[in-house]
């Protein structure tokens, strides 16, 4: 009876119980991490009750506003980033003292590198980017929301459900030890009968379906909701990269869903897709996984490239150099990213011809990527460069990402892969593209668009320190791994035997401490900014002398984004309007605005998906079936319920919008000298006029 209810969940599965029964450093570390969740949960509940925030919280959770959904993605990602950074620091600390065995048990360390990778890719980088895309893209194309606002909420719900499964594994049971790539047969049911791989499969499959839907939603948004005159070749670069990322999501997520489903069938029902025996073939998993995994790299890095384009032109006060080139290069990268997956396993024993073909295809990607970097440099040429935090990220990106590209070209060579595959060199390489590429882009993007949504800037000084900390921490933590990789140290190794590796590992450990500090500085920056928000207000909405449409709205942006949908006649529409003096001019006619009302379907789907996942992991079949039927019933109910809209009367819109326009026309703006001072209220005197 109890087995039917609890499946294979027992008292001992709970991590806290394990720590009480068998206290040692590993169980204590995991138990304190596990304890943070209930403790944190109680504190949050107390805070919500104390501040009477339950109602606003409910408003947020049921919101279909793209700005609020984007914010929720980013909050989710920051929480997960905390976990990821701590895991990284633990691993680096363990390896710093890892000569012949560190302080962590092998099983614990193996879970750490699995959760670190899974977390950073699926629950940090992707939600961060989805958050940014959600916030920025509708504003940049002059739309009021995304094409399918309710579907957007469901995507968020599925991502959160994946995150829930991933986090709950910290408290109940364990996570996979098979690495973020989860290769069978190591994750098959014979070798790994526990719950770990099931958590892994379900967490990434559920959030992966959410990502597919996000891809559909944003590609349709960008195809169909562009405002009048916003032709493709007038779109801001960030929107272009968001479009490419969305297309990649549509085509790259299904292989992940498929290989997770197949591995699940192997594990749950005894199929033979990837088993050792009876004609199963683990190479199929590896192929499918990387058919997703390689485009995934570009799913992450393309929007970051988009941010870099925006930085280069905005913070040097000039047009983007080589717009057409950059767009073409972005598309090239997107297409080529589907043709190179095999370079993740050059050493699997295929023929030299196959390896050579995929090696050369991989090299081809270096061409458009190189072009983009040259284009951004050329954008700075002839500009007036302001060294604000985003520009520091851009400069760090130039130097460090280029080194990452260099090691990428090295690894593109099958010959060298025979030596460097599975080594620390590889670890150094992908951190070298993901931290200076993706993370720098995300952090810079948050710095740029934060005032747009919340109405005040982030404090500049702390932001700059944060940027430097990330760069220095990265260099110290990961550059040594290039050397240890060349010296033959493998990845995923809890300990090592060669004393020559120790100094490098110690430096790397120190670097990881700085990265931890850098994370704290993000929180500190936000905290100090919130406390000083009065001084940092930018109500006019254009703190950086921006160039695209999103800056042509007040900050914080009203829920309807644009009182009247703008018309676009060229690239950099808002910069053009400012130069011509047509910005902030009164609009004649206002219409009623119809917006989709809040719904709780996304929330329900999140609960159902979490229940489905948890039920499957622990073999609580009743829970899984009930959740699945519940989700279907929800979908059917949804089809029958009226889709509520609410109307914002034209008069109300007119009042708010005209007041803002009038104030902007009458106000005196600031030059770029005062960009980071209190005087910057978001009204810019165009740089083209005032720059020396």
């Amino acid at each position, binding site marked *: 009876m109890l087995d039917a209810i609890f499946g294979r969940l027992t008292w001992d599965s709970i991590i806290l119980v394990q720590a009480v029964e068998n206290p040692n450093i590993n169980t204590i570390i995991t138990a304190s991490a596990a304890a943070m969740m209930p403790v944190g949960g109680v504190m949050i509940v107390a805070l919500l009750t104390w501040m009477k925030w339950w109602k606003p919280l409910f408003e947020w959770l049921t919101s279909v506003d793209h700005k609020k959904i984007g914010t929720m993605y980013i909050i989710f990602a920051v929480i997960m980033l905390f976990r990821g950074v701590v895991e990284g620091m633990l691993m680096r600390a363990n390896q710093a003292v890892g000569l012949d065995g560190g302080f962590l048990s092998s099983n614990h360390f193996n879970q750490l590198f699995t959760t670190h990778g899974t977390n950073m890719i699926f629950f940090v980088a992707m939600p961060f980017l989805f958050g940014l895309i959600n916030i920025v893209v509708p504003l940049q194309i002059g739309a009021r929301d995304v094409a399918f606002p309710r579907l957007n909420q469901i995507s968020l719900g599925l991502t959160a459900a994946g995150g829930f499964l991933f986090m709950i594994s910290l408290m109940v049971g364990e996570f996979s030890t098979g690495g973020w790539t989860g290769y069978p047969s190591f994750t098959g049911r014979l070798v790994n009968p526990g719950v770990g791989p099931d958590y892994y499969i379900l967490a990434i499959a559920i959030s992966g379906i959410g990502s597919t839907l996000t891809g559909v939603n944003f590609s349709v948004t960008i195809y*169909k909701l562009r405002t009048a005159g916003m032709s493709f070749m007038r779109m801001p670069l960030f929107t272009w990269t968001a479009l490419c990322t969305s297309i990649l999501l549509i085509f790259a997520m299904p292989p992940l869903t498929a290989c997770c489903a197949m591995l699940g069938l192997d594990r749950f029902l005894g199929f033979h897709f990837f088993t050792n025996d*009876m004609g199963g073939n683990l190479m199929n998993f590896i192929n499918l996984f990387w058919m997703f995994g390689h485009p995934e790299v570009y799913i992450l890095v393309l929007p970051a490239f988009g941010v870099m384009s925006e930085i280069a032109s905005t913070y040097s006060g000039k047009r983007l150099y080589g717009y057409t080139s950059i767009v073409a290069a972005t598309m090239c990268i997107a297409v080529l990213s589907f043709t190179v997956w095999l370079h993740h396993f050059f050493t699997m024993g295929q023929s030299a011809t196959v390896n050579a073909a995929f090696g050369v295809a991989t090299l081809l990607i270096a061409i458009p990527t190189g072009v983009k970097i040259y284009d951004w440099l050329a954008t700075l040429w002839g500009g007036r460069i302001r060294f604000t935090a985003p520009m520091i990220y851009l400069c760090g990106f130039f130097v460090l990402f280029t080194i990452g590209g260099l090691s990428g070209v090295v690894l593109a060579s099958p010959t060298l892969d025979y030596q460097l595959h599975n080594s620390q060199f590889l670890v150094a390489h992908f951190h070298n593209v993901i931290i200076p590429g993706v993370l720098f882009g995300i952090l810079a993007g948050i710095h740029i668009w934060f005032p747009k949504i919340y109405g005040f800037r982030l404090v500049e000084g702390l932001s700059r320190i944060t940027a430097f900390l990330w760069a220095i921490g990265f260099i110290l933590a990961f550059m040594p791994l290039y050397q240890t990789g060349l010296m033959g140290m493998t990845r995923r190794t809890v300990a090592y035997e060669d004393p020559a590796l120790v100094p490098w590992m110690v430096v790397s450990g120190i670097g990881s401490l700085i990265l931890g500090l850098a994370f704290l500085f993000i929180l500190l920056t936000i905290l100090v900014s919130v406390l000083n928000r009065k001084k940092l207000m930018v109500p006019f909405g254009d703190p950086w002398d921006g160039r695209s449409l999103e800056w042509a709205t007040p900050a914080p942006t009203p829920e309807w984004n644009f009182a009247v949908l703008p018309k676009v006649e060229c690239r950099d529409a808002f910069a053009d309007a400012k130069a011509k003096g047509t910005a902030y001019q009164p609009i004649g006619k206002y219409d009623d605005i119809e917006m989709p009302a809040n719904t709780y379907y996304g929330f329900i789907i999140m609960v159902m998906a979490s229940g489905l996942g948890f039920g499957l992991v622990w073999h609580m079949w009743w829970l899984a079936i009930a959740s699945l039927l519940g989700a279907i019933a929800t979908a059917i109910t949804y089809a029958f319920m009226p889709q509520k809209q609410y109307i914002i009367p034209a008069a109300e819109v007119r009042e708010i919008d005209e007041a803002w326009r009038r104030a902007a026309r009458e106000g005196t703006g600031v030059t770029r000298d005062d960009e980071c001072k209190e005087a910057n209220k978001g009204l810019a005197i165009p740089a083209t006029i005032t720059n020396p």
Partner: protein
Amino acid sequence: MSFSIRKSLYPGLNLGEGHGDDHLEAETSVFGFWVFMMSDLVTFGMFFAVFATTVPLACCPGPKELFNLGSVALQTAFLLASSLTSGMAILTLKQQHASRSASTKKLIFWLLLTVLLGCGFLYREISDFIAMAAAGGPPTRSGYLSALWSLVGLHGLHVTGGLVWCLVIVAGILVRGVDLRWKLTLLRWAVFWHFLDVVWIAIFSFVFLGGLL
């Protein structure tokens, strides 16, 4: 919401007469569903790819022992016929005239006929699965059989979903009448249903015919 569509509307928007600006909403909705179908197609592609790499093992029954081509042909006939009737349903939608109730009845007739044919397909498919398992070819027997069952089963699961969806639409039309939302749902469902036909043709040719030749 307003949309920035100016030209090149999707030609399959059969919304009937006098729909005002509804086609603008339909355009986004149906286009979005097409995009989703592309994604689903890749999923099927992956199952196809895995199937293509597996070979029947000597120790276990293969296509010759397991496939019942007569039944598969019957399934194909059912599914193709259901595609035709679903097309008739959409045409009815397009030709909706003033005599609303008559055309609604016709619409429901075609939809229910589609469901019936779909059920026929599923019935044959499930019988075949049972027969295969009885002949020593359950999916747990070998990699080839796993891939076969999953590919065909994934399609069957889609068909089941399509049938449930169709019944929901019929129920919805009975409750609320043929309003814009049900029309849009119908248009998307029709895309889905034809898509399943296309996938089945591929399964029929590569898996069943290819396996026997």
